[in-house]
């Protein structure tokens, strides 16, 4: 997968996260019962429990801010520092999702599909951003090698191109 395709994938996932967490934040403040396909609406019970807030701040809002900052790190010009920021932020996000999932499964004994959705999203983003950080700027290396061989400089695929 090219660096550009990887970054685009992460941007799309982060945008989905912003939408999901934004909706849950809206539900929290409006006091609306979240729609839930699971019988008995455990999402409602999870979101009304005391674990729906951390130090008085709704966890949905913390999630929303987290996804926005991750999106910001992806939209910043790509360099080593930006890749590190995305990796660190998604790892932090995964840790927070793990805490919330622990509370759902072992303390409340309820599973909320919205929370599971966010946790899955964050897990995929974490895996991709760790991979992206560890491999560094592969495209730049490929360009340098091509130049050393005297061949044409490889061009980046168009945005949204199929992953290689």
């Amino acid at each position: 997968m090219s660096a550009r395709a990887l970054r685009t994938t992460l941007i799309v996932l982060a945008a989905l996260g912003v939408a999901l967490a934004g909706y849950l934040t809206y539900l929290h403040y409006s006091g609306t019962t979240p729609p839930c396909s699971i019988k008995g609406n455990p999402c409602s019970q999870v979101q009304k429990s005391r674990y729906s807030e951390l130090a008085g701040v709704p966890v949905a809002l913390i999630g929303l801010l987290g996804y926005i900052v991750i999106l910001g790190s992806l939209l910043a010009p790509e360099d080593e520092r930006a890749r590190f920021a995305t990796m660190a932020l998604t790892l932090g996000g995964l840790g927070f999702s793990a805490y919330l999932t622990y509370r759902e499964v072992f303390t409340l004994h309820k599973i909320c599909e919205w929370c599971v959705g966010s946790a899955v999203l964050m897990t995929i983003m974490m895996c991709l951003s760790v991979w992206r950080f560890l491999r560094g700027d592969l495209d730049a290396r490929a360009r340098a090698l091509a130049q050393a061989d005297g061949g044409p400089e490889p061009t980046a695929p168009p945005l949204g191109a199929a992953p290689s």
Partner: protein
Amino acid sequence: MSHPGVEDDEADLTRKQRREQAREQRKALEEEATASAKRKARLTQLGIVVAVVVAAVVVILIATGGGGTKKVAPHSAEANQTTAAVNTLIGGIPQSGNTLGNPNAPITLQYFGDLECPICKEFTLGALPPIIQKWVKTGKVKIEYRSMETATHEPEVFNSQQVAALAAGTQGKMWNFLETFYHEQGEEGSGYVTESYLQGLAQQVPGLNLTQWTNDRNNPVLTSQIATDKQAANNAGFTGTPSFLIGKTGGTPSKLEYSSLTDPASFNEAIEKLLKG
């Protein structure tokens, strides 16, 4: 016959090529060393971030707690504090079996709960006190506590703790018992509800005759009450606790959808509507 000048040129070229090759090899080795150092640095950074995240999650878990597997000793400062809080809330309110409040109250609220359910605890310590204060103490509403197994994973433990509460009810003290239970509730799934735990709770209920309470726990009528409650919860289509039915006393109750476990607004609204209707 070859010319010596040409041999020298060929030898020079070979030397030049060798030097070039050696330089390229050196360069490749340097690049490899740089890339390897970068990889190591990145792995170290990753390790540091993982360690920081794990430490932060542990801190949050400890800070947000979970109730613990505590057992409050009867007559301890904490037990006395709980007893005082329960007395302040329900002292002086008539009790009969599983019912708290004026037997002739026009409205009946049925509270389906599991004593080990942390969300029920949140309701019992959150929205319930203002409801008792505003509606039960004034004789307009009576509350029936009905059991529904959700958080308690072992049916025998569920039956045992529920029968223990109902046995206190035969002496008009079920609400003291269950309020104390919820106040001192332990961490779900930790197996804290043992015989000695239930005995300790009973000792915290002021005026409870422990000999009679122990005998009543063998009363099969109390066990059948649990089965009746289960049937009622099934009929209402409840799948979680706490769940509520509300209606005029003697009439057909309907489900009460609540918007908060700590704010009694949904309950107040439903009660006011029934009182007007």
